[in-house]
């Protein structure tokens, strides 16, 4: 793929990924052909900041986990009062990373 397109994608979407993912994504994007560009540019990613806000407001109900697609863990959190309140607090700090990891999984389906 064109280096200009790849850099544009990286610039606009860098907030959705962990810093250490970006290099891999860039290299992989340069290697694949142009036919994937249409899917790639219209992809929807989970917003880490939104998940953090939801986690602070409704983390005890597991809604943050449901939002990023971790349904099983969300149910676990809901059934245990947010993991006795401890897991809910831990997730205030973990949820952004979890959302970015989910985005990486999502983009990997296209890249590989």
């Amino acid at each position: 793929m064109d280096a200009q397109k790849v850099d544009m994608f990286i610039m606009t979407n860098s907030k959705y990924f962990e810093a250490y993912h970006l290099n891999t994504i860039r290299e992989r994007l340069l290697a694949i052909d142009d036919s994937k560009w249409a899917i790639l540019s219209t992809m929807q990613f989970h917003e880490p900041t939104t998940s953090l806000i939801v986690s602070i407001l409704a983390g005890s109900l597991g809604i943050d986990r449901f939002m990023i697609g971790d349904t099983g863990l969300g149910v676990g959190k809901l059934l245990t009062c947010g993991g006795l309140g401890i897991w809910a607090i831990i997730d205030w700090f973990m949820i952004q990373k979890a959302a970015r990891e989910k985005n990486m999984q999502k983009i990997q389906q296209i890249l590989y």
Partner: protein
Amino acid sequence: MLFKNYRLYIILSFACIVGYVWLLLNLLHIRTVQGTHACLIKTIMNIPCPSCGATRSILLLFQGEFLKALMINPIGIIVAGIMLITPFWICFDILTKQKTLMNFYLQIEIYLKKAFIAIPLVILILLNWSWNIIKEL
């Protein structure tokens, strides 16, 4: 990658251990600070959350009082079921070197994301929540 494959098993084993320790603490009436709750919603807003009362429900269930357990919180029965089955399932998977629990979990996740299952479940949880608030658990 190895950690990722077994992450579910580690999380579930840890959750089971914490769950049983929590039950034991409640059974022996050991409370660290009086007047505080494990539940964040109950501590901050003073109203019960959908799963408040699950511990009481499980303790009643172990005494054989099924109906009373159901009346306190039906979620307790679901949690008790999960807590009873999961350790055996984890042991089975470790002994036979299979991933049946992992596959089951992934299947359930797919089903729960479907709207015709998710929406009734959300409504049930909301109904249970309002029932909890009325009961003042």
